[in-house]
């Protein structure tokens, strides 16, 4: 029997290979090495939750009716009887209550979407803090960045499809934001909604975007993302035997086929259990969209909170000065543009272009395949923490009503605090993080030079007490000395010896200033000479 199967398999393989030369592809792929680290699984979680989204999404399209035509509910859910609602909302109720297992799949889809966005953001943070975006991976950083934006688009269009009162108000906010855009805002609003808000075409349009356009783009970009990972080979953390010129790890087949393949099933299983046990987005409690009612304490999905928070944070009046101007007969809605367009725009542009800022500061042209320990790049780590704090202040502001309620605080005080915090906390976070990083680097130096404390106290004959220090092993030392000591770049002077001003000086000066900002304060790794000196001092 076994030989029969083997014969059939090799026959099939031969048949396919003679038509596709798949053999060389399998040869290239099968024993490709991947380094091992838990933080490399974050991107995998994103990929696997996306697959779960596709699978559950296919189920849902079989029952969802993307229509805004009003119907009177006659279905099984008693409290909604006789209520007028769109077909989209009615079919959402039908999927939840009349299709056995439909509710579970809806909840799996929603939980998977929350996990998808969360995994992308954490994966992105890992890549940022370890410097995995450096040459040659800048393109893949941009691909990943675009995937992050697309995941927000996928999430938001999906969240809005059931046409419940919460998501409808979310769309109304989008309409308000779009109308705030100078000159063309009103027309963009009409273009999106097919006329006045809410119109009757938005849900069919978002449905197409949600099930075809956005996932199609995501799928394509995931292919590019993974192709580049294979082409450029994975980055690795520093350690003995690892360098910028090699990869140390285990082969794709069988180890990662089992580990990564198995991990897909783990992610799938956890999503299913969470969806089985925890309710998410109970639209049947909210009711269908109606422009009139709204309840307190409602929240968008977590990944939209920052925009909502920014909108809440921006004062309409600041010390008697309005942030909405009526100038030359037109309305300039800075109270909307700043928080919902300009701030997210700057935030995301900075994030997208970050690899280039750092490359200018570093002046480094080589390929970098060994990851940084975050402490060894204090300014980057500090900036990362500042960005996170900026984001967190917006998220807190986006939940300020919940927080006020929970902790019996004044809503207005939280907002006032956050209006200051949005400026102060990122700066404070940057400064403290940089200090902590420099401190950790000094601790590394201390360890390399003087070894581990053993807690063993020894008394010499003449009465002196000392604590015995255990020298570090070669592996331990290597981890703490292997990184580059990057000095601020120096540039050629503005004028040459004949007093002629050279071209490109200002650009160089900018890079120099950036470089000093990054590398002025630094702790050098221990040199072998220092190590030897310390060793002799101990004896």
């Amino acid at each position, binding site marked *: 029997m076994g030989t029969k199967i083997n014969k059939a398999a090799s026959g099939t393989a031969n048949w396919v290979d003679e038509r596709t030369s798949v053999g060389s592809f399998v040869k290239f792929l099968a024993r490709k090495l991947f380094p091992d680290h838990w933080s490399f699984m974050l991107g995998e979680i994103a990929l696997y939750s996306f697959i779960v989204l596709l699978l559950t999404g296919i189920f849902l399209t079989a029952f969802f009716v993307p229509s805004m035509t009003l119907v009177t509910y006659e279905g099984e859910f008693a409290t909604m009887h006789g209520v007028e609602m769109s077909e989209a909302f009615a079919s959402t109720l039908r999927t939840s209550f009349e299709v056995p297992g439909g509710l579970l799949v809806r909840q799996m889809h929603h939980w998977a979407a929350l996990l998808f966005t969360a995994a992308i953001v954490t994966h992105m943070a890992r890549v940022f803090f370890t410097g995995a975006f450096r040459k040659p991976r800048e393109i893949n950083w941009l691909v990943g960045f675009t995937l992050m934006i697309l995941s927000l688009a996928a999430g938001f269009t999906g969240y809005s499809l059931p046409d419940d009162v919460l998501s409808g*108000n979310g769309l109304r906010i989008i309409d*308000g934001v779009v109308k705030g855009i100078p000159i063309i805002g009103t027309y963009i609003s009409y273009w999106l909604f097919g006329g006045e808000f809410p119109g009757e075409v938005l849900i069919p349009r978002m449905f197409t975007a949600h099930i075809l356009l956005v996932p199609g783009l995501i799928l394509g970009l995931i292919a590019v993302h993974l192709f580049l990972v294979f082409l450029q080979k994975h980055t690795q953390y520093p350690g003995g035997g690892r360098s910028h010129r090699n990869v140390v790890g*285990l082969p794709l087949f069988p180890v990662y086929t089992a580990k990564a393949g198995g991990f897909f099933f*783990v992610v799938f299983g956890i999503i299913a259990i969470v969806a089985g*046990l925890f309710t998410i987005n109970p639209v049947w409690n909210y009711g269908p969209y109606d422009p009139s009612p709204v309840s307190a304490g409602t929240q968008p999905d977590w990944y939209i909170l920052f925009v*909502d928070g920014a909108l809440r944070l921006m004062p309409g009046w600041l010390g008697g000065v309005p942030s909405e101007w009526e100038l030359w007969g*037109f309305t300039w809605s800075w*109270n909307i543009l700043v928080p919902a367009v300009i701030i997210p725009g700057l935030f995301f542009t900075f994030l997208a272009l970050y690899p280039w800022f750092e490359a200018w500061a570093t002046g480094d042209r080589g390929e970098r395949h060994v990851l940084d320990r975050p402490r060894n790049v204090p300014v980057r780590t500090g900036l990362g923490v500042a960005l996170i704090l900026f984001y967190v202040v917006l998220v807190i502001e986006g939940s300020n009503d919940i927080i006020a309620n929970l902790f019996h605080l004044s809503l207005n005080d939280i907002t006032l605090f956050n209006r200051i915090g949005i400026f102060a906390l990122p700066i404070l976070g940057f400064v403290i993080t940089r200090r902590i990083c420099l401190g950790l680097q000094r601790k590394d130096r201390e360890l390399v030079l003087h070894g581990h404390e053993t807690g063993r106290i020894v008394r010499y004959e003449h009465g002196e007490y000392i604590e015995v220090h255990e020298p570090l*092993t070669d592996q331990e030392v290597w981890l703490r000395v292997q990184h580059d000591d990057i000095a601020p770049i120096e540039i050629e002077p503005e004028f040459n010896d004949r007093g002629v001003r050279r071209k490109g000086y200002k650009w160089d000066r900018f890079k120099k200033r950036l470089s000093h900002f990054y590398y002025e304060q630094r702790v050098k790794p221990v040199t072998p000479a220092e190590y030897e000196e310390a060793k002799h001092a101990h004896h």
Partner: protein
Amino acid sequence: MSPDEKQHTSEPTHVDGEWVNPGLPYHRPRRSDTDPKAANKAERQTAALFGLSILGTIAAVVAYFVLDDSQEIASIRTMNIALGIGIGFAMLGIGLGAIHWARTLMRDHEMVEERHELRSSEEGRAGAIQNLKDGAEDSGLTTSRRTLLKGSLVTAVLLAPLAVLVPQIANMGGDWKVSNLRHTMWAKGVRLARDPDGTPIKAADVTLGSVFHVIPEGLNELEHHKIEEKAKAVVLLIRLDPRDLKIQPGREDWSFDGIVAYSKICTHVGCPVALYEQQTHHLLCPCHQSTFDVADGCKVVFGPAKRPLPQLPITVDDEGYIVAKSDFLEPVGPSYWDRLKGGDATEAPAETEGSH
């Protein structure tokens, strides 16, 4: 132990003032590598996990057929939990089994692979450039006189999308009548009715301190654009003690005995401003917490909105019902670029409402 792996107690080495990479750390074999019993145990554990998956699948399928599928809330909840846990174990069993297998029985001794610089070789680059040159030569584009060809091609390609995009984009905006934004259903004599049932409200029903969520009478009977009209026309009707009410200049006859009507649509980004605090006369928008003072012309006292909520002029008809005296005199809802342009809409000149 391969030659590049030294015992983990080695001292660090350096050559010519440079640290030397110590090579891969010592690989400690697992118990299952050395003890066949441990390996067999790992195999049994893995098989048990795969078995768990099979049980999960059976549980999910059985639950689907056996559980009560009447559409009662309780049975839906049971079905949801049973299926979720069944599917969960069906998947987790496979996943954990495969990972356990990899961790105990598959190779865990790391291997090394060299990287190659991503830059193409010099010959490769030169060949690419040559090929492009040859191609350009063959196309005839390298002759400098071909600017007409290049220019016309670029222009044509840049313009061609318009042929598709113009109809596409132009169709998507419906009738593009942005002037609709300044009209609502309110007009002289339209009764204020309760939301959502649509029964008209008598002034006598509005007791001191009470709030009514209001729609124009006749809204519920609309055949078309009911939601669009409702999205603009919803109003809050509030009765204050007339002594608390600061009447705004020019609006002396817009209220009736302390009863005022304001648009419910926030002037920030358009959420319904639905939370009324009776003690302070403040209206709070739950979306972004713009706060409006009903006693003082619904001016903004906190939050991101800048303009007061538009006021609907009201009076009382012969039968005692509250009616509108006209439409709103300014567009309701969020600001937009040409909000101040009067257009054809408002009879009264667009008041520069709002600020001070």
